[in-house]
């Protein structure tokens, strides 16, 4: 297994895969920092809120596509090139090879996201945000992104072992990504909206959504990622009064208080666990297939 890892890691470095990932992330982040600077955001909680919004939209989208595409070419491209026949004619097992390969990609993405964390912190400091209180959150955010990417890679591996041509698997990967990222979450949200109980508080609504997503979207990494991040804020109910034409009215309102990514991960521990468990399930399916396939 260690050899497969070495080989993949070396490939990641030499083919500049790592740097490609990093460049894409940084390319995405630079405009965000510029905007923050223009808007003069110096409050750390506001800043992390912007980063989270950005991660759960833009970064998740691009990195998700990147991850599923990396995965989708992992095996079939090697069969086309013949490198896998060379590799597996050596003194290694198939199981060790695929797990080593996956770990290699894990480390490449891990390093990329670790570096991203540092870039983010540097960027925030450049904007003028004091980062001492949100340093841990920046790292946790990237850990969550990493877990999500790893699940997308594993889904890519399944595609890569079932679709023989690497060209076709690219198309399939994009299709699967669209289904998991947009189509099914939209359908599930729509269904949820139809059955939504009335009079839910914000916290209750959030929990309700999370439940729905856990039940019906447990297989979608991006859906789990967003459901976890939905819990970063704590909503406090306050009763407010307002005077209209001399009469006082009372109404319910919410104040959102940033409670941190640690809190979100604890509160949505099931969804964090789903990210990990489903990754293992997907990887298991891909491995099962890989151990049986003709490598020509």
């Amino acid at each position, binding site marked *: 297994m260690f050899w497969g890892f070495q080989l993949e890691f070396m490939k990641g470095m030499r083919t500049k895969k790592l740097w490609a990932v990093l460049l894409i992330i940084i390319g995405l982040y630079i405009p965000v920092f510029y905007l923050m600077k223009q808007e003069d955001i110096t409050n750390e909680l506001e800043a992390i809120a912007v980063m989270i919004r950005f991660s759960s939209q833009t970064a998740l989208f691009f990195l998700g596509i990147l991850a599923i595409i990396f995965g989708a070419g992992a095996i079939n491209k090697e069969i086309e090139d013949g490198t896998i026949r*060379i590799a597996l004619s050596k*003194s290694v097992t198939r199981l060790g090879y695929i797990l080593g390969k996956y770990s290699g990609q894990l480390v490449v993405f891990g390093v990329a996201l670790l570096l991203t964390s540092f870039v983010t912190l540097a960027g925030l400091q450049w904007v003028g945000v004091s980062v001492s209180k949100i340093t841990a959150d920046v790292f946790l955010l990237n850990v969550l992104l990493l877990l999500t990417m790893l699940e997308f890679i594993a889904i890519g591996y399944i595609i890569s072992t079932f679709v023989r041509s690497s060209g076709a698997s690219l198309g399939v990967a994009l299709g699967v990504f669209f289904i998991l990222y947009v189509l099914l979450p939209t359908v599930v949200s729509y269904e949820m909206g139809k059955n939504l109980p009335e009079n839910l508080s914000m916290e209750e609504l959030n929990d309700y959504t999370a439940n729905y997503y856990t039940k019906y979207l447990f297989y979608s990494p991006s859906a789990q990622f967003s459901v976890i991040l939905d819990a970063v804020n704590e909503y406090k109910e306050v009763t407010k009064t307002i005077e209209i034409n001399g009469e006082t009215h009372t109404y319910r309102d919410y104040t959102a208080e940033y409670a941190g990514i640690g809190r979100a991960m604890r509160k949505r521990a099931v969804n964090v666990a789903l990210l990990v468990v489903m990754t293992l399930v997907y990887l298991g399916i891909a491995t099962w297939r890989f151990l049986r396939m003709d*490598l020509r």
Partner: protein
Amino acid sequence: MIMITVENLVKAYKDVRALDGLTLRVPHGVVYGFLGPNGAGKSTTILSLLGLVFPQEGRIELLGEEVFRDGKFNEGNLVKAKARIGYMPEHATLWEFLTPMQTLDIIGRAFRIPKAEREKRAEEILKLVNLWEVRNKKVGKFSKGMRQRLLLAQALINDPELLILDEPMTGLDPTGIAEFKEIIREQRKAGKTVFFSSHILAHVEEVCDTVGVIVKGRLILEDSIENIKREFLKKAGYTIIIETNRPVDWSSAPWSVTPLGENRYRVVSPEDIREELHDYVASQGAKILTMQVKEPTLEEIFLKLVK
């Protein structure tokens, strides 16, 4: 020791039966030429040996280890056997972004060869295959012949007892082929066993001790080249072409004779009949001016067999 034992191997890809009960045996220390036309199942056989494709039935033993039986590979034995085997695939690319040195280094690691020894072997091998000059150039910039040499080099890194080469000489120029054959001969001298496939007879002719011919997934012949030729002559007979000084009447001759035009004849007989031919022609009051005995080329034998 028997280095490769294959018994009744069956491999079907969806609807194509690529191996149809293949049986063959490669003893220690020989150079075995595995011959067959395109699509005969040569690559399928080799890929099956290494566990790269899954046959459905049969048995495979490599270097005394049983690696396949009852439709299953024994991964433990396979890994053990692979440690002592070098394999050169048919048209594969190596990692384009690595240099020959780096390629041999990473492959050496797969065999857990210590660093110092890896470097020493890499140098020896790159010199052997004539890539030492370009050892630090990226493979992406290599010509086809250079890639082919590197493919051979990577097969040699673990100093294998058994070399399995799939069409190793396609794409090489005549010098390259000569060098390749020399390497194969040296391997045999060093006591190694070489199993290589080809559909080009010239590649096989001067280096192989034994030839196996596979057609449609079955081994139809396995013998030394000399024996194959002798057998073929026995079956197909001698073909002698003669030219005489005047027409000859063949009606009382015991052989089958075809006139080829102006006093030229083709005589076919199961035995060597050169002397008898002289006597017969003389008895007809004529003289033989030229006589040409046609030995079958391996090509002809091959074409006959494949039909």
